[in-house]
């Protein structure tokens, strides 16, 4: 679709000052001024229309049906949503999603803040190298990360259990309990995203005027005090942005828990780490005849993310005045 745009070239810009006022070319120029901007932004909206808007509308339509992927579709109104509210497994998946989000995001942001602060030191040698290095995990394939971490957290031959064994801790069956599976998954998420968030925070830190620190130094404030009194308050907008990004990612968590559970959509024998996205897939794709219900889960997830984004926005508005 990106190829479709150049096929209609915008009117050529006039070369040199026009000697005669030609009404035709003036019209063209007006047309150009008025409509070609839409043409320039069209590629995004076309792509969004195909891969964003259309699936959303279709999903909403499906969620109002008893929809069999390869069979009949019956309109049932809001029955899927009513059922969703009574579904233990939906609430379980919601708790898991939010739980893993908190377990993963809190340490991740603290660590990212710490790393960003270190990298922000003016007298650090090899600055560029370190800044590049912390970003590397982020460009690693998520599947590769999940598979490797899955092996690290194996029960019988995993490195983590071996290390724990050295200090006298019994082997942990990582995917058999809620807490242990959440921790293992949080490790995968944090490994990939801490560096990314640290870079964004670092950018925010660099935007803080140097003279504030200089003034503080003259007044006798040490590094620690400067961090608390200058860096953190000035960083709030960036920080909220990072939290927002983590929220979107965290609520749609899918690949890590899926591969951690050997590709089973259930996420543990008792759904200890089944996230909303996994439950949506289980109902919407794996189980052919409940595609409508899966679509309802997708919309519930969408609304949930919307609510959390709104809360975030309210927080930003209050803190940044």
């Amino acid at each position, binding site marked *: 679709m990106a190829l479709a745009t150049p096929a209609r070239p915008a009117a050529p810009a006039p070369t040199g000052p026009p000697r005669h006022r030609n009404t035709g070319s003036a019209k063209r120029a007006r047309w150009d001024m008025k409509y070609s901007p839409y043409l320039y932004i069209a590629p995004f909206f*076309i792509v969004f229309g195909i891969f964003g808007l259309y699936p959303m509308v279709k999903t909403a339509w499906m969620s109002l049906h008893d929809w069999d*992927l*390869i*069979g009949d579709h019956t309109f049932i109104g809001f029955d899927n949503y009513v059922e969703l509210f009574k579904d233990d497994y939906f609430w379980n998946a919601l708790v898991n999603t939010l739980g893993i989000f908190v377990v993963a995001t809190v340490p991740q942001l603290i660590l990212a803040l710490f790393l960003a602060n270190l990298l922000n030191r003016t007298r650090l040698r090899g600055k560029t190298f370190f800044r590049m290095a912390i970003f590397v995990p982020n460009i690693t394939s998520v599947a590769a990360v999940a598979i490797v971490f899955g092996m690290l957290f194996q029960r019988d031959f995993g490195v983590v259990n071996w290390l724990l064994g050295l200090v006298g801790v019994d082997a942990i069956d990582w995917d*058999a309990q809620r807490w242990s599976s959440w921790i293992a998954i949080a490790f995968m998420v944090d490994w990939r995203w801490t560096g990314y968030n640290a870079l964004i925070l670092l950018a925010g830190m660099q935007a803080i005027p140097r003279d504030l620190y200089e003034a503080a130094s003259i007044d006798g404030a040490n590094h620690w005090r400067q961090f608390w009194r200058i860096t953190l308050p000035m960083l709030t907008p960036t920080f909220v942005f990072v939290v927002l990004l983590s929220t979107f990612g965290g609520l749609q968590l899918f690949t890590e828990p899926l591969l951690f559970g050997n590709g089973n959509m259930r996420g543990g*024998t*008792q759904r200890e780490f089944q996230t909303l996205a996994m439950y949506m897939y289980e109902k919407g794709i794996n*189980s*052919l005849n409940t595609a409508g219900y899966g679509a309802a889960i997708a919309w519930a997830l969408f609304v949930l993310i919307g609510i959390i984004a709104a809360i975030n926005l309210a927080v930003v508005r209050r803190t940044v005045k």
Partner: protein
Amino acid sequence: MSVSGRGSKLVALAASAALVLGVAACGSDDGDSGTSAGGKPDKLVLETFSEFGYDELVKQYEKDTGIKVELRKTAQLNEYRPKIVRSLATGKGVADVVALEEGILNEFKTNPANWADLTPLVKDHSTEYLPWKWELGKAADGRLIGLPTDVGSLAVCYRTDLFKAAGLPVERDAVTALWPDWPAFIETGKKYREKTGKGLLDSVTTAASAITMQIGGDIFYDAEDNIVADKSASVKEAWDTSLKMVDANITAKTATWSPEWSAGFKQGTFAATFCPSWMLGIVQDNSGPENKGKWDVAGVPGKSGNWGGSWLAVPERGKHKAEAAKLAEYLTSATSQVAAFKLKGPLPTNLEALKNPDFQSYTNPYFNNAPTGKIFGGSVEGIKPVHLGPKHQAVKEQAMEPALRAYENGEASATAAWDQFIKDAATQGAF
């Protein structure tokens, strides 16, 4: 965006929409196979998973008929199923002949209109196959959806070196004699645990699958496809025996297909697993060439049973249904089934193929030259018809096995595990 110029925004939106439609219309239907002038297809597409052993047969068919056959393979069934679903749901890329495994066949049978009725397209083969296998290829409305390929049959794969170390017999007939029934199997497991401190069997779920298939009859569904998991005799028996195995501590608690399980074959975490014939290749792959000759194949405790097996079906949307049916007919014939078995091991269902001396005398070099033709072939005749409901696979994998595993890992009590199983069976089994 600014608030002004509402009208032009709409124009732009309409222009974008027109472009979208244009792009969508450009997508062509490239899943079709071409047709030459005479109405005979140039090419047929054959969609399979895992290994059916069709490579040589397909070449022969091309030579005989002049029709090219594109043999597609997908390694794992859980990747294969969504592919078939997608092609049926969208009508794009539909193959001419599709292999359907027992677990997914029943699910697809609930919408028989997706599949061509083969009865008018092929000769009457109804008496040439294991009768129950033939019957399962039919949908509720009577149309013949699939021609039988293979069955799983049941055996036990065991490690001779680990058995020797535990002071157990090593020779396959003596090993079979160790466990005439399931209580005897549990006793053997206890002895093994005493000597080695390890679990004899990989996990309790493989035993549970084997037992449900041995007892046969209704498993999770009755003949009218009502869910009867809570009162079925085979489920009860499998459940109780499985719990006894856990209580006797004879398993290594490695969930099937998990990394622990795959690594366990090499590491000797367990010394035995239940082997339908198609499992032999998986045992071989996981154990690696260095363990060649260490595995052997013995009989199962109790009676024979079936586990897995497939059919060849022709999608209704296919362009060349008559020719596709001919190809399926050719691939499921007696000679083809023996050829496929020799190449990759799927066990014949054609009665003539089962009597073929080439099949009966085959020995498997990886498994200490075990006469797999005789072992599996001999048990095929005793297999009882099993009625698997439309969502058998889902109930087995998403309800029964997780509950058993929760009990095995000590996460749930016996009653809590049972309640979880019955609850999940109801939701997973609904169709």
